[in-house]
């Protein structure tokens, strides 16, 4: 039924399996989905060799994750992959919300201007994975191994031992660190005995990829209780190649095997699009979801990321988007620890920061789920009341929740942050991901995020002669606004609430970790130590 041709990646028997010698690798990634592939690219970008094991030999079947938000695009841009994704994907700005047979209201996202990447794109997951696989194959530090299935995992003080099955049999490999990106049903998670707790939702969704044969507007349409699917919700949005993705809420009593049959699916879609709209069915699947997370993102030498660490409802596109941000958070920390430039304790901050973000995502997606699928008669009345009022009055529209677009969770409670010692305007508090802005670089138009290097970066609006500061062998580059970059539109100063002297310290993942009203080298050194998980002077702690 699908016109998309799934690529097959060749299985190759590794030299270590052939020779029967056990090798110890610095990093082994389990799972070559969007999160595992991103992990490989980010660690390789930081100079680390990575082996990726995947039990399959192709990309994701069906469109699955679909929606990718700005922050993941910024991360993939750092890894050289965002441009082809945006080129292939589609963006939408107009959203329509229908209630029963009426248009309740429509909105225009009008993304804030002055950012390199759009607020989000829609792209089938198979295309996204193709782009990531191609980038991995071009990187000599990445060893992608298809048809490699992890059978068991044992940890010692020094390493993790992995028993891996391939078409040529079973062999053993060792890893200093394992990154488990093997999805919501993670086998790795079971192997370490981790708990994965949360809330199950008694609901099922039918998802279909449909190829439209005629023009259809590039808009996101969300229906509450439509006449063609009474009592449930439906979502329609566009992807690449004239493929539309449709999500039908089915309820708990639906029979998944029956509902998947084309003779059931096609009449549903006809009722929705109208008899006159010609389409072809590309892919159909049924899913049910849960909101839950792992007890700890770190189990010894095994680190969990993506759906293996947390599962959310699909409303708000929080699955893949947060998984990519897990990797953004983890890769620099792991690289510093592997290079001996930071204590192993830094790895524990990965759990602190990303479990905090996962809980925030779970909260947001649970709220959307509760609005979309009210659990009681009274909550359904409130939901319908909000929709009734939204049709006529602007005040009720912010109450309507058909999924809130995923935005990064600031790590406001992170132990790596240096608390402010002065008051600042603007929202760039320590723990916040850096806002982009157009800047001039060497007389040309560039972007602020592109100027932030792979390591720590100091950006100052003051007068400084130096090019870098060095702390415990870690070099932080200094960017002076007016010397190295031009803020001709003043947007950078505006977004960072900066005046003369304002100085920011960014982590290697482009998060603000400290800021000051003037350039102070001793304070910068202290903040870098803290952001690397090193103990900081007690005196300052007491003063703060």
């Amino acid at each position, binding site marked *: 039924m699908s016109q998309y041709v799934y690529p097959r990646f060749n299985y190759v028997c590794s030299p270590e399996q052939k020779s029967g010698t056990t090798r110890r690798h610095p990093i082994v990634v389990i799972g070559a989905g969007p999160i595992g592939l991103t992990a490989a690219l980010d660690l390789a970008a930081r100079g680390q060799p990575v082996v990726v094991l995947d039990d399959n030999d192709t990309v994701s079947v069906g469109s699955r994750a679909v929606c990718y938000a700005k922050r993941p695009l910024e991360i993939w841009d750092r890894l050289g992959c965002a441009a082809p994704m945006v080129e292939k994907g589609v963006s939408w700005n107009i959203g329509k919300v229908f209630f029963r047979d009426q248009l309740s209201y429509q909105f225009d996202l009008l993304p804030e201007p002055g950012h390199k990447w759009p607020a989000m794109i829609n792209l089938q997951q198979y295309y996204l994975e193709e782009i990531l696989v191609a980038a991995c194959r071009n990187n000599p530090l990445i060893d992608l191994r298809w048809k490699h299935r992890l059978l068991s995992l044992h940890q010692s003080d020094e390493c993790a031992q992995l028993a891996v099955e391939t078409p040529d049999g079973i062999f053993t490999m060792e890893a200093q660190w394992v990154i488990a990106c093997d999805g919501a049903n993670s086998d790795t998670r079971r192997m370490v005995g981790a708990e994965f707790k949360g809330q199950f939702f008694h609901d099922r969704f039918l998802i279909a990829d449909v190829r439209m044969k005629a023009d259809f507007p590039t808009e996101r349409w969300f229906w509450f209780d439509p006449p063609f699917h009474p009592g449930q919700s439906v979502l329609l949005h566009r992807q690449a190649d004239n493929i539309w993705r449709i999500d039908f809420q089915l309820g708990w009593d639906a029979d998944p095997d029956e509902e998947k049959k084309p003779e059931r699916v096609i009449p549903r879609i006809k009722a929705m699009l109208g008899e006159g709209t010609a389409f072809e069915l590309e892919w159909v699947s049924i899913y049910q979801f849960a909101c839950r997370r792992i007890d700890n993102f770190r189990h010894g030498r095994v680190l969990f990321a993506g759906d293996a660490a947390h599962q959310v409802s699909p409303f708000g596109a929080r699955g893949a988007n947060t998984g990519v941000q897990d990797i953004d958070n983890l890769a620099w920390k792991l690289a510093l620890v592997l290079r001996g430039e930071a204590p192993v304790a830094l790895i524990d901050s990965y759990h602190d920061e990303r479990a905090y973000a996962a809980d925030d995502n779970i909260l947001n997606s649970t709220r959307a789920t509760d609005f979309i699928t009210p659990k009681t008669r*009274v909550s359904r*009345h*409130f939901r*319908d*009341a*909000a929709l*009734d*009022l939204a049709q006529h009055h602007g005040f*009720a529209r912010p*109450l309507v929740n058909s999924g809130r677009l995923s935005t990064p969770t600031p790590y406001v409670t992170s132990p790596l942050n240096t608390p402010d010692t002065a008051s600042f305007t603007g929202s760039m508090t320590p723990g916040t991901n850096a806002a982009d802005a157009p800047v001039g670089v060497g007389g040309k138009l560039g972007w602020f995020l592109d100027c932030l290097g792979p390591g720590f970066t100091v950006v100052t609006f003051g007068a400084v002669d130096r090019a870098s500061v060095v702390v415990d062998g870690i070099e932080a580059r200094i960017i002076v606004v007016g010397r190295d970059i031009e803020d001709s539109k003043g947007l950078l100063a505006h977004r960072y609430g900066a005046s003369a002297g304002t100085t920011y310290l960014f982590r290697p993942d482009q998060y603000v970790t400290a800021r000051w009203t003037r350039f102070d080298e001793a304070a910068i050194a202290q903040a870098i130590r803290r952001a690397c998980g090193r103990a900081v002077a007690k005196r300052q702690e007491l003063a703060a």
Partner: protein
Amino acid sequence: MSLILTPNIADPDDFYAELIGAQRDLSEEESMRVNARLVLLLANHVGDRAVLSEAIRLARSPAG
């Protein structure tokens, strides 16, 4: 501002009659919907989150 708990409606009998009158001829389901709309309209008018929280708390346990 905190939640006003002293009399604040000029003509209490008239208001009460209007509130009950708004439910006339409605089924229980329709009435529930009208009251839900009313809560949302009034909540938006109040706006202040702390006041709304106080009102929700007192609605559940009037003794405070």
